């Protein structure tokens, strides 16, 4: 998912260039200029996201990127998609990301292991994916124009009708996929709980509270303590 999202983000930047060049090249409208500028900002934020060496900054730049993408959707009159983008990606996915980072390791300053030896391979894959997506988008929508004065082409009503009339089968397939993932998550978490239960019953007398309490509480504090301990040395190294 991350790879696909990144590729999508990378594609969002250059795509408007092609769009403005084929139409309204001599007299671009305000919306087209705004689309281009927001696209550049989004592209820049996406670049910073994958190149910065501060982990939490990367997550926060991802917020800018995904928010910029939502603005692009808005400019394309796809209002419903735009707000869903903000709700799901900015509101939930990034929060989950930050939660995971803070729970494990999120030092202030640079992370020494945030760089990877695969960066050239990653760049090649990203450029290839972006090139494919741009080619597909430009080829598919070359002569399609949105009439800004007419009824909104991406309103909730239009989106719902096209989703549930033309695209019911993919929608249902995705639903089944998500359901399978949900069931899988429940199965995995239940198994983990059953394994962690048996030692804790042996080591602790039964206190009457649910066994999940000490687990979930001790975990972040212990991790946090160790993260705090490593912080000063890293910061001294950085400054």
């Amino acid at each position, binding site marked *: 998912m991350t790879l696909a999202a990144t590729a999508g983000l990378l594609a969002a930047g250059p795509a408007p260039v092609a769009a403005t060049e084929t139409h309204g090249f001599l007299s671009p409208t305000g919306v087209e200029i705004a689309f281009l500028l927001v696209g550049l900002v989004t592209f820049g934020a996406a670049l910073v996201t994958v190149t910065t060496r501060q982990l*939490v*900054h990367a997550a926060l730049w991802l917020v800018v990127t995904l928010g910029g993408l939502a603005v692009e959707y808005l400019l394309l009159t796809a*209002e419903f998609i735009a*707000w869903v983008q903000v*709700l799901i990606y*900015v509101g939930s996915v990034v929060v989950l990301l930050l939660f995971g980072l803070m729970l494990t390791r999120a030092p*202030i300053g640079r992370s020494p292991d945030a760089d990877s030896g695969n960066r050239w391979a990653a760049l090649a894959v990203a450029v290839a994916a972006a090139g494919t997506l741009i080619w597909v988008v430009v080829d598919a929508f070359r002569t399609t124009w949105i009439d800004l004065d007419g009824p909104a082409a991406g309103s909730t009503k239009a989106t719902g009708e096209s989703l549930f009339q033309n695209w019911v089968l993919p929608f249902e397939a995705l639903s089944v996929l998500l359901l399978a993932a949900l069931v899988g998550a429940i199965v995995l978490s239940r198994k983990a709980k059953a394994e962690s239960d048996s030692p804790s019953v042996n080591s602790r007398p039964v206190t009457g509270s649910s066994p999940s*309490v000490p687990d979930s509480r001790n975990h972040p504090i212990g991790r946090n303590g160790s993260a705090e301990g490593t912080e000063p040395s890293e*910061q001294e190294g950085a400054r």
Partner: protein
Amino acid sequence: MNDALDVTLRLLIVFVVFLTFPLIIGQTEHKVMAHMQGRLGPMYAGGFHGWAQLVADGVKFAQKEDVVPAGADRRIFQLAPAVALLPYLLVLLAIPIGPGEGAVGEVIDAGIFFVLAVMGVGVLGSLMAGWASANKFSLLGGLRTAAQLLAYELPMLLAAASVAMAAGTVSLPGILDAFEWWWLPWQIVGAIVFFVAGLAELQRPPFDMPVADSEIIFGAYTEYTGLRFALFLLAEYAGIVVLCGLTTVLFLGGWHGPLGADGLGWVWTLLKTAVLAFIVIWLRVTYPRLREDQLQKLSWTLLVPLSLAQIALTGVVKVVIQ
């Protein structure tokens, strides 16, 4: 020219509401809490029953030094209060207080999605503050904030989806236009789920584990001083305004009332919002803080099933009456 004037006027009104209503609720909280606990509350500032207490507090906050801890991530630390506060200003734009297009800041086609999405962004401010403070209590507060948001976002969305199904639209003015009085008993479970989940998202007592002052000082806001701290407090009260306004619009019929719906619709909206805000304060005085595991349990084992049941009920009734 006329259009520009219209837009400016609307923005100005929303901004004034944004600046005054949270203060009114804050002052009410001072006085209501005090009287519920057998105290008088603020009595001196401004003369009459301490009405200017929060103005005095504001002046005090503005005079304090703005401290950024040496080990903190400066820029994110300073940016966090704005990220926490601004989303509520945007949400206020979309809440209709009366019938017609004149009584809403901006008609948004996918209104429910807009308000819930933007409210969710506000939590990023707490997360940024918790992480950037370089303080283990702040980090704990940030973690608890994130865990709470993830748990309560789902029932809130499901409850809102139930109303959208009932009305057949996701636009807030559209929902109010479709409202009938019998929606009140029909959607009551969804209303309670939405309100409780919203309280948890605002980290109001009894869901204030992320800022639990007796164990982690003040959670993500521990290191903040002066105006930036005041901005976080303002965000909390602006959040109460937004949550009560949204519950009013989605579940209590907004400007619909037993009488005078045409000219005095906005009075009904404000009245319902004020009653809900009173309940928010009342809950704070009444209930002890929920423990972290109790918080999670309440959401996943009670609120989510209840909201799913509400959606099923909404669907069945909707099919039957058609």
